[in-house]
């Protein structure tokens, strides 16, 4: 009866996997040190993140998965679902011990769960590509604050880097309080301490907005209103594709005035 605790990072988690094999002491649970205390009386082993150990486990996983699914475990981990660690752990035990690839064995509850969870994470990442909206600030920075359901900004930062290569931008996760800053040369993970934006809607304070920003938002709202076909009104379909939780970040969905 042992519980491994780690720092909540993917690297830390992979280090845990390494230790369970290294110590041949298989856990009843693996949980983040910072999460809630589920096991008051169990024996605990606290794992320090170790890049080299994590890397060995990662390589081991890569050897066993096809290219199509080589990110499966990472995506599923980013879901931050309760208990995801043990599901991944059970999956990896099977993966490492069996001869044939098990990643398509959807009759197995863990395989199916990880596959479906990683699909949900991918979908949320896709929604970032869709619903991120940049606001232009006086300093010339393009800013977006948003709150993805899963921790997906690491999955989409390179998309924005490629696309907006000549733009200085900052993409910020309002809930997890960190973001990615691109300065036209390199991409950097950052934490902002003095925030000149609403931590709820991501709206940049008016006094730091670039002149012209408001005008473009106005044009966009007006365009959005006029491209709609009244006779085909279908609000349910609209909500289905564009869930309500994103509306507060979208200028076109803020009340027209």
């Amino acid at each position: 009866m042992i519980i491994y605790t780690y720092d909540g990072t993917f690297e830390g988690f992979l280090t845990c996997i390494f230790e369970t094999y290294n110590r041949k002491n298989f856990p009843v649970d693996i949980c983040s040190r910072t999460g809630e205390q589920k096991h008051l009386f169990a024996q605990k082993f606290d794992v320090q993140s170790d890049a080299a150990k994590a890397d060995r486990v990662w390589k081991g996983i890569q050897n066993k998965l096809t290219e199509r699914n080589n990110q499966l475990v990472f995506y599923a981990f980013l879901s931050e679902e309760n208990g995801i660690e043990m599901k991944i752990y059970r999956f990896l035990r099977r993966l490492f011990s069996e001869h044939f690839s098990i990643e398509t064995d959807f009759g197995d509850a863990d395989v199916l769960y990880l596959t479906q969870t990683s699909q949900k994470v991918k979908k949320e990442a896709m929604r970032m590509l869709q619903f991120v909206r940049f606001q232009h600030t006086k300093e010339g920075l393009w800013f977006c604050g948003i709150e993805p359901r899963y921790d997906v900004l690491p999955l989409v930062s390179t998309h924005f880097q490629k696309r907006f290569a000549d733009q200085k931008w900052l993409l910020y996760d309002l809930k997890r309080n960190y973001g990615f800053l691109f300065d036209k040369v390199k991409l950097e993970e950052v934490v902002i301490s003095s925030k000149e934006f609403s931590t709820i809607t991501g709206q940049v304070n008016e006094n730091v907005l670039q002149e012209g920003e408001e005008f473009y938002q106005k044009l966009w709202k007006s365009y959005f209103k006029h491209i709609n076909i009244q006779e085909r009104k279908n609000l349910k379909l609209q909500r289905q594709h564009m869930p309500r939780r994103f509306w507060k970040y979208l200028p076109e969905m803020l009340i027209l005035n």
Partner: protein
Amino acid sequence: MKNEDVQFKLSVLADAAKYDVSCASSGSSRKNATKGIGNGVACGICHSFTEDGRCVSLFKILMTNHCIYDCAYCINRRTNDRQRATLTVEEIVDLTIGFYRRNYIEGLFLSSGVIKSPDFTMERIVQVAKKLRLEENYNGYIHLKAIPGASQELIHEAGLWADRLSVNIEIPTEMHLKRLAPEKDYKGILLPMNQIKNAILISKEEQKKYRKAPRFAPAGQSTQLIIGATPETDRQIILLSSGLYKTQNLKRVYFSGYLPVNLYDQRLPAFNRPPLVRENRLYQSDWLMRFYKYKAEEILSEDQPFLDLDIDPKLGFALRNMQQFPVDINRADYEMILRVPGIGVQSAQKIVMARRHRKLNSLHLQKIGIVMKRAKYFITCNELPASTTDWAPERLKRKLIAESVSKNKKLSDTQLSFFTDYKPALPPMH
């Protein structure tokens, strides 16, 4: 840009552009090689959804809604007394870049009414694309309308800057096109379409030889058919669109349910709501041909010229061909599994992969995401039929309709959810 002016023009020209339903930004993986702004993403990205539930991917706009022609089905016909506006090349470029930098859009879809002459109009359309590519260093998506009657040189140049080109057929038979738009004919439409098809083929061949060869409309070409303005049958429409996929290599054929824009015109049918259910059934049929490997003739037979509005065409096919069912989930070919109502592309792929590891039972299927309420009448798994009674097709049809009606009781026919069971497999992430 003069502010009020632009805002006014934008609203008039968005209004005028909304009838073109194409908005897809897919099929291009143009790289931001110049380290400027923009790139293509092969699966396309929708950035917003308007109240009608349609996707906003491209900034879809007319350059002008002035037009020298008088097509009966078009809101912009010259005899309509409407507000008219024209955006300059610079204004369109500024708007596109301004929207793109904010991640509002995936690119530009530029169309136009015809001013002065087809060449005069096409030349301006081409200028916009050229300016975006060369001066703004823009590598995002561009879809241009090829104006019938424009010179071959201009259309060729358009293809060098654009990702996709389209020529709209609009009316599914030439006879009715001539009735509603006497100034147009199929020859004028097919000419640029053929030219584009050939140029795409040639450029693909040359790309194979040397990678730096200029690309011509790498995301292909598409067209649009208006549904319900003229009396063509669904069978005629489906055969036309499948013919277009084959002979013109079109990437997409769009269907646009006719909106009664010119009610006064006696040549048009007098209804005041667009035929949305029919349009949806046609899209489903189109989906079946493109992703489910159905042949056009399988969807509608000669003695049945219209699609059943009560049920989707895939269920319709299954009910007409009960002798091909039940399908054994653990053994049948992928193609047959795809044909089971309630099983989509993703689920079918999962089934075929999963059954290599173990025999699947109905619990597995449910977890994988199969709509068992529907599928159970058409499958067996683990040698057992999933449904215990033998159903006559007519009775089964009524039962399934009743079930889906009670579920969607409150929805009117304008509230269809598109393609519930028709989604293609998820595109890979980048």
